[in-house]
């Protein structure tokens, strides 16, 4: 460094910056088709495997599919959350890659629609997943007490409401950003901030309630007031991981040079690290309170996961979601190197899948004392999860290659281009 930085507040650095030359921030026509075909191939193949699994063991296949759908939804929820936060705090350092967050955010209503096949398959499987709607749960006193909230009509209406709400918020924010590309009106940034102010409250509540409805209600006797935070912590974690992966792939393709540097990866790595810790804090707090208070409806959740090979999966979640990334990502060099942090991004997505697997799947083989995990049918899980994530990957690559990689008229681009960690 032979020059003195002018600091991070030189607004108005625009298209004349060398890092913003058009070859650096736009994909050539037809770029990414290889990756796109690979993803759609994976998606179709995986879902075909899951479909075969449906005829082998419908409940197992349904739960596996649900794991994949929830993972895809949490990825998009994480991206949406970060867009809202960045807008609210006037974050400057993200403006060179905020468009990538928006790409993933805009897919939230699309992947949320995958809840429809989940509900349909659940219906045809006699509500084996959302067991509280089945005849076997009918008359259970714990369900009767919750029926005011947990009844099919209200449940489906709520689900539809979340998806419509998310569609409105994400499309509004996306529209403002794309409009700024065309008109260059810097005040659209302020408009997006105003929208984010009310949207973050609404998103916080709808995310928590979606977590209650789509995950917690699978075991209708169980309740945890921390479930919404747990769901959110996983979303923010996996959303950050996906972003790091997208940016690392773009850098590998020779794009965003000078626009997304080690400095940005460093800070994204810090976010990934912090949400590893936050998730662990929430996950342990939830377990700890249930362990101490010892209320049967609550402890049943963990009791179910202490049989057969489930403790092994639980330990895998703790090690992969927290212990290992915590110790390794503490080191500065790991976060600053795009390759190593991209490795941990993939790792984190996998850890999140195992976490969701640990949450959803125990209900399937709950009566099977010999093999409560259902290892013999684990190929259905692999197929369903990779299938849904393949579909999501295909959608994301499509979005990323559809326009410029950077919101070129963002008034805070100068800040992001000069972003540095001075420690």
């Amino acid at each position, binding site marked *: 460094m032979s020059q*003195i930085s002018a600091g991070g507040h030189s607004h108005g650095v625009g298209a004349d910056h060398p890092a913003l030359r058009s070859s650096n921030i736009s994909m050539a026509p037809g770029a990414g088709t290889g990756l796109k075909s690979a993803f759609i191939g994976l998606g179709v193949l995986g879902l075909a495997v899951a479909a075969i699994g449906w005829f082998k063991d419908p409940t197992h296949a349904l739960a596996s599919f649900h794991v994949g759908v929830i993972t895809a939804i949490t990825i998009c929820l994480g991206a949406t959350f970060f867009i809202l936060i960045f807008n609210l705090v006037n974050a400057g350092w993200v403006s060179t890659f905020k468009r990538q967050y928006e790409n993933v955010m805009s897919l939230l209503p699309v992947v949320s629609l995958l809840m429809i096949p989940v509900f349909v398959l659940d219906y045809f499987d006699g509500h084996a997943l959302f067991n509280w709607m089945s005849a076997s749960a009918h008359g259970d006193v714990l369900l009767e007490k919750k029926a005011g909230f947990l009844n099919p009509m209200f449940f489906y209406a709520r689900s539809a409401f979340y998806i419509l709400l998310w569609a409105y918020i994400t499309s509004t924010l996306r529209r403002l950003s794309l409009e700024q590309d065309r008109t260059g009106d810097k005040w659209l940034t302020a408009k997006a901030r105003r929208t984010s102010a009310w949207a973050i409250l609404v998103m916080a509540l709808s995310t928590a309630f979606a977590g209650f409805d789509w995950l917690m209600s699978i075991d209708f006797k169980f309740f945890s007031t921390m479930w919404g935070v747990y769901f959110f912590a996983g979303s923010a974690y996996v959303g950050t991981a996906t972003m790091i992966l997208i940016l690392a792939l773009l850098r590998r393709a020779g794009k965003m040079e000078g626009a997304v540097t080690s400095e940005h990866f460093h800070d994204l790595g810090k976010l990934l690290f912090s949400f590893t810790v936050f998730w662990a804090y929430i996950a*342990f707090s939830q377990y*700890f309170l249930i362990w101490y208070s*010892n209320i049967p409806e609550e402890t049943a959740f963990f009791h179910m996961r202490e049989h057969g090979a489930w403790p092994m999966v639980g330990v895998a979640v703790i090690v992969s979601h927290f212990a290992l990334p915590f110790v390794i990502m503490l080191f500065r060099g790991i976060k600053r190197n795009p390759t190593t942090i991209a490795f941990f991004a993939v790792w984190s997505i996998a850890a999140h899948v195992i976490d969701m697997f640990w949450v959803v799947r125990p209900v399937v083989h709950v009566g099977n004392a010999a093999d409560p995990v259902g290892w013999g049918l684990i190929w259905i899980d692999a197929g369903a999860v990779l299938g849904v994530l393949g579909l999501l990957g295909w959608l994301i690559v499509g979005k990323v290659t559809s326009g410029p990689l950077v919101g070129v008229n963002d008034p805070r681009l100068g800040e992001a281009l000069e972003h540095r960690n001075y420690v």
Partner: protein
Amino acid sequence: MSSKVYTTESGEVVYAMVAEFETPADVYHAAEKVRDAGYSRWDVHTPFPIHGMEDAMGVKRTILPMVIGVVGLSCAGLGFLMQWWMSGVDYPLMTQGKPFATWQAFVPITFELGILFSAFTAIIGMLFFNRLPQWYHPLLKKDRFLRVSDDRFMICIEAGDANFDPDRTRALLEGAGGKHIDLVEE
């Protein structure tokens, strides 16, 4: 430490040589020259932080985070052992029908002790590595030095540096554009 001790005309021991600069850019480039000349015991004084100065000075990254990490994790481990010994060995007490030594119950205090001792290590280590507190500093005797809190930038090379030599150091600072080059007495 240099083996040689320099004295001024009045017979006082020399602490350092200082040079003044008028702009951040001047002091930045002068710092690069001093760095490249191989000095290690020297500092730059400015009225405000100058970004990138640590590179121009060739300042190495601090090892403080490593110290904090080691002490923090050790103290968390010791905190866990302490609770295990107290509740499981020394004075077992039945609480809530749980076993005597349960790792779950020990986690919050283990965590808090890790945080507490990390914070202690951070603040004490920071003071130690900065050689603080210091109640007196020779530079404060210089009237001109007061201007580094206003509109001047100063480089100060200590006489204790192995490379220090009154003539050569003066030549270096002059060559780097320093004004009002002066010796500071202990």
